[in-house]
Every structure is written in C-alpha cells, then in structure tokens.
C-alpha cells in the first residue's frame, strides 16, 4: 500500500488503545488490583465546581507578624538592658519602629553598644541624631524578608496541620504570591465550620484576673470579653473581665489537647497536656496565685476563669466554657496544631454545594449529548459519507481529548465541559473546510483522487493558521485564569491538538485507503 497507509493505520489504532487504557481509571468505578502495577492509573480530576467543596484564598497579615516580631525584640532588648544593669533606658514600640528613650549620655552609649553587639537585625531609622536622648531603630530589610517568609511558611504549616486533623480527602494547601495561601477542600459538608477552624489565629494565653485596687481597671490591666451562654434563653452573653496585663503562659507550651466529653454538671471540655517547660511554669504560676482566678484566653476572648484552689502539678490544664462537642473538637485541633503567627483573612471564597456540583455534571453531560448528536446528524446528512467520516473523526477526537486530560491529570471543571462541547462543534470545521474544498474541485471536473489531494493540500494552511490563533487565545486564558477558567483553557488547547490529528490525519488515511484500492471513483461529499 502506498504512502504507508498500513503504518498510519497501525499508529492510529495504537493511539486508540493507549487512549482507552488511560481512560479506564477515570471511568471504571473500581480497578482490579493488578491494574496499577503496569497500566496507567492517572485520572481526570473533577474541579471543585463539579464535585462540590470550598476554595479559599487566605491573606496573611504579615504586618501584624512583623509587629509581633518587633515586640519580641523589644522584650529581649529590655531583658539584656536589665541584665547589663543599664538604667535610664525605656523601650517602646511605635508602629514599625522601636523608640529608646535615654535619660543620660552614658545610658545612651551603653544602649548603642548593646544594639550594635547583640541586635544586628535592628538598624537605625535614618541617621542617629546626636545630642538627643532618643534612638529609633527598625528591622533591617533582610530580617523583614526572613520574618515574612517565616510567617507565611509557618501559617501554611499550621493550616495544613489543622486541615489534616479536621479530616478532608485530597486537600490542597499552597502558597500563592507573596502573602496568600490557597486552600481547596473538596467535598466538605460544613464549609462554615472549616473556615472558622482554618481562620482562627488560636493564640492561647493565661492571665490572672485583677483584684483589689486594680479591679477597677487602669494601669497594668486589660479588659477582655468572655463569652457565656445564658442558661435560660440560650443567647450569647458578653461579660467583660478586667485582667492583669502580664501574660503568664502562652499556647506554645501545649504538647497535646484532647476533648473530654460532657459530664452531668458541665459541658464538654478540652484538656491540655503541657510539655515539660509548660508543666514547670504552670506549677509555678498556680502556686503563686492560689485563691485568685486564672483566665484562659483564646484570641482575646476569655473562655473561662476558674479559681486556683491549690498548686497544680503534673502539667495538665483544662478549658471549659460554652461550647458543644464539635466546637470542643475544633478547639482541640487548633490548640494541637498551634497558633498562626499572624491573623489571616479570607480574601476570596468559593463554595459549591454537593447538589449543585452534581446538577452541573448532569447538565454538562446532557448538553454534550444533545449538542454532539445534532452536529453528528447534521454532518451525516449534509456531507453524506464524507460527513459520516467526519463524525468518526469527532468521536475519536472526544476519546483522545478525554485521554489527554487523564494523562495531564487535568482538572475538569464546568467551563471545561463546555470546552469539550465547543470542541465538538468546532472540530468539524477542519472537515468542513476539506469537504467544501473537495466539492469545489469536483465541480471543476477533477477526479475523485485529485479532489481529495487538492482538498487536503489547499485547506491545510487555513486550518493550521486558524487553529494556531485559537490555541494562542487558549494560552492567554490559561495564564490569566484561575480554577474553572483554567479548566476551560486546558480543554480548549488540548481539543485543538486532538482536532488537528483526528480531522486531518485520521480522515486522510481512510481516503487514501480507498484511493489505493481504486475503489474511489466517486466521492460522496
């Protein structure tokens, strides 16, 4: 057979076989055990808009993380100054700078020396002004970058931990840009709860409730709200607590947190298991404050403030408060996973309920079937046998397109399905071009064979150029788009590749076959 018709047919048949093999994992409900050992197990994944789920873009408040770091630096600086017996220096944070007020020239010199020797990450804001008693330092650029990176990495790690413990199948947690975190949770039932869990800063603090003269507030105290449920009405009630400002212990000493079920007298509680350092600290704190009330604070809300009856050893503390079992479970998760280094805000949320996702799949398949059937019927009626051939090409096209999506492990979205439907409508264009051309050549009185030759040769530049431009717009879409739109861009581009192959290469083999057998005296086009 001329022009390697046999080789070309074998090539196509091999590709069909490969395509079918690649599609089995996506189509079959279960695979036999031996399948993955030597056959492809890649799958077309369904996007969140089809399977249901939540997409969140979280912005980490990195400025807050820098402020926290600066506060720590200030604390450290005060400690070093104290240990060096330097008096007459006060350290205060003012926005993104630390201001050191010195009373004497010696104190200023000493502070400058300590800054130079022990705090290389702090640099002077502008030129140090001689003669005045004030020094102003800021974090240097490298340190800021390091802290920002660290805060983002830490947030990512913490959020990933929380989600893992929450129990979501195939979650995505990844960095996006310089301060955002992308979270995708397929198929979750209660997105509001997941959002609350992820977004909680979860800074745990222990402070004592102010007494005596301080109880009225003022210097060295802070007022925070407690949340309690009114026993009769079930309404949330906010009770203000006046607390001593000093934080005695924070959540970083928590080694584990567990839910203790509700008893007859009180609701469920969360038991904290402290690490060694925490256990020592807790023992010290409780022994120094017997008879006083210890407030347990999470994200500036007082959960409970029990009275310390005696020194508590053994490294166990418990949080009771107004929460149900679910909330207690989520609380335990955030305490185990640790606090976020900075608050996060949800800057984008897209949640699709499971029923809408299912509807979308059904509607997508229906429009694919109806649209495809209309095109196939039209082609067969209009171009007769040549149309039937084009229809075969379209069928192969869809097969290859789906296989390509499986090989790429692409995510199929609702616009992606629309892209497949559109590909069916557009794919026949190449055949239309060739067929129209063949009709023209036949009208000029050419033989069937010459018409086929000319039809393909002359139509090819137009087919190539026109598909390249559509491909280019698909690439731009892919660059620009997010989620569902990307899914559309992928099917559009993959569809063009499979179209060129099936509509031009595959159909040509069939014509060549009949020509070589000299059976093609008239064209049915």
């Amino acid at each position, binding site marked *: 057979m001329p022009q390697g018709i046999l080789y070309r047919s074998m090539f196509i048949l091999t590709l069909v076989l490969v395509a079918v093999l690649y599609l089995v994992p996506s189509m079959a409900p279960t695979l036999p055990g031996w399948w993955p050992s030597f056959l492809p197990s890649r799958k077309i994944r369904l996007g969140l808009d089809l399977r249901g789920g939540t997409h969140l873009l979280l*912005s980490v408040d990195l400025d807050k993380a820098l402020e926290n770091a600066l506060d720590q630096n200030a604390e450290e600086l005060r400690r070093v100054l104290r240990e060096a017996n330097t008096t007459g220096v006060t350290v205060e944070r003012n926005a993104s700078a630390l201001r050191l007020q010195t009373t004497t020239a010696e104190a200023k010199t000493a502070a400058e020396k300590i800054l130079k020797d022990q705090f290389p990450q702090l640099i002077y804001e502008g030129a140090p002004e001689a003669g005045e008693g004030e020094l102003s330092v800021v974090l240097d650029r490298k340190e800021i970058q390091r802290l920002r990176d660290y805060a983002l990495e830490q947030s990512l790690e913490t959020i990933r931990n929380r989600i893992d413990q929450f129990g979501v199948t195939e979650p995505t947690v990844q960095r996006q840009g310089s301060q955002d975190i992308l979270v995708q949770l397929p198929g979750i039932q209660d997105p509001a709860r997941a959002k609350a869990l992820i977004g909680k800063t979860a800074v745990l603090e222990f402070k004592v409730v102010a007494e005596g003269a301080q109880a009225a507030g003022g210097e060295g105290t802070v007022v925070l709200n407690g949340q309690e449920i009114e026993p009769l009405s079930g309404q949330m009630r906010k009770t203000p607590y006046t607390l001593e400002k000093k934080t005695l212990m924070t959540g970083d000493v928590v080694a584990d947190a567990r839910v203790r079920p509700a008893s007859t007298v009180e609701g469920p509680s969360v038991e904290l298991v402290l690490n060694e350092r925490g256990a020592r600290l807790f023992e010290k704190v409780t022994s120094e404050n017997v008879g006083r009330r210890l407030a347990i604070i999470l994200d500036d809300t007082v959960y409970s403030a029990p009275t310390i009856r005696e020194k508590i050893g053994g490294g166990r503390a418990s949080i009771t408060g107004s929460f149900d079992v679910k909330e207690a479970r989520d609380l335990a998760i955030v305490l185990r996973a640790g606090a976020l280094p900075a608050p996060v805000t949800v800057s984008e949320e897209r949640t699709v309920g499971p029923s809408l996702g299912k509807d979308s799949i059904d509607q997508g398949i229906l429009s694919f079937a109806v649209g495809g059937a209309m095109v196939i019927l039209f082609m067969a009626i209009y171009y007769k046998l040549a149309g039937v051939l084009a229809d075969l090409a379209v069928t192969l096209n869809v097969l290859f397109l789906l296989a390509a999506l499986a090989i790429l492990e692409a995510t199929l979205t609702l616009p992606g399905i629309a892209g497949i439907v559109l590909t069916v409508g557009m794919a026949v264009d190449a055949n239309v071009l060739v067929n129209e051309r063949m009709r023209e050549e036949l009208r000029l009185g050419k033989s069937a064979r010459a018409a086929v030759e000319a039809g393909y040769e002359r139509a090819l530049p137009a087919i190539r150029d026109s598909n390249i431009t559509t491909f280019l717009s698909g690439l731009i879409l892919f660059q620009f788009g997010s989620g569902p739109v990307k899914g559309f861009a992928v099917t559009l581009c993959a569809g063009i590749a499979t179209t060129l192959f099936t509509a031009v290469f595959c159909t040509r083999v069939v014509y060549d076959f009949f020509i070589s057998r000299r059976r093609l005296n008239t064209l049915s086009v």
Partner: protein
Amino acid sequence: MEIVPNNINIDFVGKRFFFTIFSIVINLISIGLMMTWGLNYGLDFAGGAMIELRFAQPTTSAALQEAVKDQPLEDLTVQDIGRDSKIFMLRFKQSEKNLSDVSNTVQTALSTAFGQTFEVLRVESVGSKVSGDLRRKGFLAVLFSTLLMGAYITMRFDFRFGIGAVIALIHDVLVVTGALTISQMPFDLSVLAALLTVVGFSVHDTIIVSDRVRENLRKFRRDSLAVTINRSVNETLSRTIITSGTALLVLLALFVFGGHVIRPFAFTLIVGFITGTYSSVYIAAPVVLYFEGRRLRPAAA
C-alpha cells in the same frame, strides 16, 4: 445537499459602505449602553459576596429580603433565577473586613426564618484586593490577545490583513459587551473566558477568508482587489455558515441544557460567534480594501 448555492455571488464589497456605517452605529450604541447602563459586573470583578439557595417550596424575593433585613448588608439584591421561584441569589457588599463571616451570619439568619427548607447551592465572596487584581488582569488579557492576534495575522499575511482582523476583533468585543449590557447577564470570569474565546474564534474565521483572498490573488492576477475579495468571501461563504452553524448548535444546547451557572458563558459565545462570523465577512476583508493602493505582496507562506 447545499445550504449555500455554489454559484452564489453576493456583492459584499459593493455594499461595504452601508455595512461600515451599520457596524459603526452598532458599536457606538454598545459604547453608549456601557457608559449609561453599564455592565453588570459579577463578584469576580466587582467584589462582594453572594449566596445561592434552593428552596423546597416556591418563595418570594420579598420574603428573603425580610429575613435578612437586620443584617448589615450594603447593596443587597435578591434575584429569582430559577423557573419555578425556588432558586434565589442574594448578592451584597460589606464594608467590614471579613466578607466570608458575613455570608455565615446571613445563612444563619435565613435558617432562622426558613428553617431547614432550603439548601445552599453556592457561596462566593471576593475581597476588593482580589477583584481589583482580576479586573486589571482581565483587561490586559483581552488587550494582549487582540494585539497578539493582530501581530500573528500581520506575520502570516500582511499588515493590512492584521489591521482588518484587529478592527473586526474590536467590533466583536464591543458587540458582545453591548449584548451583555442589554441582557444584564453578570460579567464574571467565565464570561471573560468566553470573550477571549470569541477573540480567538473571530480571528479563526477571518483567517479562513484571508487565506482564500491570498490564494485568489495569485490565481486571478488581473482582477482588482475588490473583485478578488468579493470572490473569496463568496467562495468561503458556505464553509463560514456551516462552521458557525455547527458551533451554534452545540452552544445552543449548552445554553438550554447547561444550567444557570454556565448560561452567561454560553450566551456570550453565541453572540460572539454570530458577530465573529458577520465581522469576518463584512468587516475584516473590506477593511483590507481601505488600505489598498498597490497589489498585495504574495505571502511568504
């Protein structure tokens, strides 16, 4: 079977002044509509939040308005988007920082009013930072793809064809945005994706015609450019109509059966494919004539 008779010879080029005026008028109307009514920007570009619900029993927008009247929502709109008054969309803005918390409280308020008689189909909230970013990127995507298409055609054909294609593209984008303004379909990311596809398709169509012009210029060297262009448009007319026709068949299926989420997307493509076909016949090729003067140089391809 033939839809377009093979000896068809419509004088497209001769009527080009009429169609130029017609197109300019349509475009001016589009611009006018966009400036007065304005596009109905979806969440992606406008920011804000929306909740889509399906009720077990038909209800009314007023009942929903009533249920959330105590919530601090700005620009609340309640829209009945189903055919049977069961699917509703609430859209609102919020000045507070954490938009997604608000959608939670709205859901709670609705549960209080309606009990468990509804299910939440979709919840979306887009902060102003994200929406601003998307607006900028979306505008650039349309601009770049238009320029890129013009550059590609200039490279493959000729500068005049490039100009013709770009003018046809601008025309199509304006017609589509005008139609979106009239229909007040939400202009969101998927609609923008459709618009970019229209850009791709419109050029696709223009190329088919231009390719034939190039071929005929070589074949009929004696004829004037006007005659050659008219001949080329007529010769490709059958293909133009059939391809647009099959594409429109599947798009109509998508519009009718694809569900309300994909409907604005399908609508944009339908309008775009119709105007894309029109523009490659009535705009792209005739524009080449305006830049006439000498014979087109034979392309290197």
